[in-house]
């Protein structure tokens, strides 16, 4: 349900970059989303397809979502653990003093489009 607000924010950023660029139009918006965020890609795409129609230059754009798995790093032994089930304990030494190093991303990576200048 929060995908709509996230798409609105990412389109605001994308549109600002677009208007400062020499692109004629945008045909791809790339985002990086960690699996910790409970985001449903299909819902993101649905909101994106609705909102892009309201923004000049984005009408033909597609949303490309790069997902990031959950990976923690132990603060004691520094080993990394890829999490299949969500349990923030080091798989090597068992310590729960860990840091989420991947999986919490929520970034807009880039916009891509046709350049009018060449």
């Amino acid at each position, binding site marked *: 349900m*929060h995908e709509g607000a996230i798409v609105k924010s990412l389109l605001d950023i994308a549109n600002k970059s*677009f208007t400062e660029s020499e692109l004629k139009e945008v045909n791809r918006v790339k985002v990086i989303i960690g699996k910790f*965020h*409970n985001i449903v890609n299909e819902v993101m795409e649905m909101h994106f397809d609705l909102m892009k129609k309201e923004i000049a230059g984005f009408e033909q754009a597609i949303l490309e979502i790069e997902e990031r798995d959950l990976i923690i790093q132990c603060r004691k032994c520094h080993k990394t653990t890829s999490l299949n089930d969500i349990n*923030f304990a080091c798989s090597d030494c068992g310590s729960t003093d*860990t840091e989420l190093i991947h999986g919490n991303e929520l970034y807009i990576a880039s916009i891509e489009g046709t350049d*009018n200048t060449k």
Partner: protein
Amino acid sequence: MSQKEIKIMQKILNVNDRIADDLRTEMSKKGIVYINLMSSPGSGKTKLLEKTAGAIRDKIFVIEGDIQTTLDAERLAAAGVGVYQINTGPFGGDCHLEAGWIRSALEEIELENVKYLFVENIGNLVCPAEFDVGAHINVVVLSVTEGEEKPLKYPLAFRNSQLCLISKTDLLPYLDIDLEMMKANMRKINPQIRIIELSAKSGQGIQDWLDFLAEYKT
């Protein structure tokens, strides 16, 4: 004409996060402890706030978030609590509050002598956890009727909170819930989380909650 990629690499919610940081700083300067209460619908947030207002000596103010109705705000106002209602229904029905909503609300609120500012977020364990409202303390409320596995299903809310209040403990004699399993699941997500068991109805644990608030330094 050629294809070109423009790198951006920004946090999608950076505008919200900036407003949230400003709010946190502003409340710290005023000496106000700012708490964001998150939970599913019906976990007992409003009842807890009624109880808190009745038991605490310091002045509290509540910003109440709901998609529809002013029912919770009316309950709090009847309990003598200063309250401001945000309804997201007329503005697209957002299922969470964002920092910008709080900033707009604060422009209309008089916080003189207020020691604790609460946001009672919209009842929903998914979306509110995503948006920093600028609080000093995120508190997730989980009632004993909701099940042991909820922390695993909604990890962000538990990971992003400093405190979990397990509410409605007066119902425990009538339930099969494994409370230790519920707490173990919370600690799987957030090993540092503080947990207080309480019942706003019986009063059990309320003093622990008040002590937690009193000990917090902005």
